[in-house]
Structure formats: C-alpha cells, structure tokens
C-alpha cells in the first residue's frame, strides 16, 4: 500500500504542498526565523517543491531540496535545481553546512531520533530548525500508533512533551511550540465534504472497509493534532569560565529545557 501522502485522495485534496494548511505554517516559520538571501536552507522532504518555490519568492537563493520519491522530485525540478534524492537519516551533506532546516509533515514518517541527530550533524551551531507534524492529543498511552492500518504521519505521532524531549536530547534548544490543530481539522472537514465522511475518506485511501473503520478508531483513540516546533541547534561556543586558555571549546547543552513559548494558535470559541 502507498504511503498516505502519495494516495490519490490525499494528493487531490492537499494539492502541491501535501500537508494541512498548505503554505500557512511555512509563512509562520519564515516570519519567526527571518531567513535572508544567503541563508542556506534544507527542505527535508521537499515533495513537489512548493515550499522551495515560496522561499525563492521570499528572496532566498540557497535552497536545497531532498526527498525520497522520484516523481515528486521530478515535479520539484520545475521550481528549483538544487535537489537530491535521499533518506533524512543519511543526508548527503557535510557537517555544519546549513543555516536552516525545514521539515514539514515528514518527520513522523522517519526514524525520528536518528533523523534529528542527522539534522544536528549538518546544521551549523545556532542554526534554526522548523518541524511541523502530527501529535497525539490523547492523554492515553503512547502505543496507539500500532492501531493505524497504514504507514502515515499519524502512526508515529506522540504527545508534545515527548516531541520536545526528543529535540532537547538531540542537541536542540526549543524556541517555540505551537498548536495548529485547526488547520488539520479544516483539512479533515474538506475530506468529509469531498468523500461524504471520514470513514469514506479512509475507504478511498485503503480500498478496504475494515481498514477504514480501523483508521477511524485509531483517530478517535489518538486525537491527532498539528504542531509547529522551532528550535536552535545547540553549538560549540567559547566559554571563558571553563576554558582558561580560551582555546578549548565547551558544548553548551540545555537538555530538558522547556520551550520558551507555547501558544495555541487560532483557537476559537465554539459559542
């Protein structure tokens, strides 16, 4: 079975961005990080290159795209030339070469810890990373991913605390974590209008009524949400307190540091 994001119902519903909200979170990321024309950025899991096209329109010129899917890369080629095929866990890039990494609705499809460590390797100290993906809003156990019948961004989703801890453990300092679940709900609502119901959407994806019901039960159990996290790659900096001769370097770590900001975006009162 194809990954969820490559199925016809999802591609038709989401368009070129292949994620809830389209470029909405990309714009938020650019607004927060404020990259310049010379910022070297990796779009990790660039898909058809919609984000790369947007970043180019914003004046950025050093944009690298990486994806696993040949067909998506062929589409992306129309928007940019700096493309590579590869796995996020084994980036074809040298150490400390990037100022910024974008990973939008891709991270949950990967070996998450390994990929974060690989991002840390290729990022310069102080570089920014922005990751958007699904998380579980359920207060239950974290093993509910097993219930999803297809490999998808929902199946490896965990709660937000676990997401933040993984970033901290991998050498990042979390700057902001935002909830953007309304964008996910809107996408789900569009699928309902298109297919008749959420179950009918999953039926169209899986082609199997039992699997569709299983997906609905999994969604009910995990209560998927959408987050945006922006973090800084911790780095090697001179520390006069610990380096008497100023030649040694000390790694600054902020393990388990709490995010500076947590806000729920676009919350609206149902009344």
């Amino acid at each position, binding site marked *: 079975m194809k990954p969820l994001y490559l199925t016809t119902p999802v591609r038709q519903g989401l368009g070129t961005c292949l994620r809830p909200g389209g470029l909405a979170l990309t714009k938020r990321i650019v607004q927060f990080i404020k990259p310049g024309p010379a910022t070297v950025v990796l779009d990790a899991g660039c898909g058809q290159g919609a984000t790369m096209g947007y970043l180019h329109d914003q004046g950025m010129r050093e944009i690298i795209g990486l994806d696993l899917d040949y067909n998506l890369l062929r589409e992306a080629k129309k928007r940019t030339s700096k493309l590579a095929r590869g796995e996020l866990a084994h980036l074809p890039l040298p150490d400390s070469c990037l100022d910024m990494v974008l990973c939008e609705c891709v991270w949950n499809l990967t070996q998450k810890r390994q990929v974060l460590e690989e991002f840390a390797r290729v990022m310069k100290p102080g570089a920014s990373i922005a990751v958007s993906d699904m998380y579980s809003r359920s207060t239950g156990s974290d093993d509910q991913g097993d219930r999803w019948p297809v490999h998808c961004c929902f199946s490896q989703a965990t709660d937000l605390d676990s997401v933040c801890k993984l970033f901290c453990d991998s050498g990042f300092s979390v700057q902001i974590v935002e909830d953007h679940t309304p964008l996910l709900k809107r996408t789900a*609502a569009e699928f309902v209008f298109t297919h008749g119901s959420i179950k009918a959407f999953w039926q169209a994806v899986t082609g199997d009524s039992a699997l569709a019901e299983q997906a609905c039960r999994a969604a009910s159990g995990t209560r998927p949400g959408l987050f945006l996290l922006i973090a800084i790659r911790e780095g090697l900096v001179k520390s006069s307190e610990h380096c008497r001769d100023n030649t040694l370097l000390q790694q600054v770590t902020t393990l388990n540091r709490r995010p500076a900001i947590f806000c729920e975006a676009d919350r609206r009162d149902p009344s």
Partner: protein
Amino acid sequence: MSLSFLPKDMNWLCRPCGVPLEPGIVELRYLGNVFKVELLVCPKCSAVLISEDLALGRMLEVEQLLEDK
C-alpha cells in the same frame, strides 16, 4: 475547494419569490472556517436549498469534527 451538491431534481421554486432556484457558489461558514460549495440558490432573495441528506450527513460530521466531538 468548491464541491457541487446539486440535487438530481433541479426543478425547485423559491416560494416567497416565485422564481426557479439556480446553481450558485455558496460559502458555508462555521467556527471560522469557510467552505465553498455549489448549491441551488434563489437569484432574487439568495435563499439556499440544503437537502436533508447534506445537512444531516456531511455538514453534521463537519460540525462535530470542527467542534472536536
């Protein structure tokens, strides 16, 4: 997104205005979300025909979804 929910039977009249309903793009708004759909609309008073199937099917599920129920 623009989806069409026109009935099979297009022969509907707006009773107050006495004119036939016509296909038109309608914005359905709920909790800050806007969905554009094609429905039958009165060209005079802009009243919209929403079938029971649509109201109790897709629209109800969308409402519950957006309400987090």
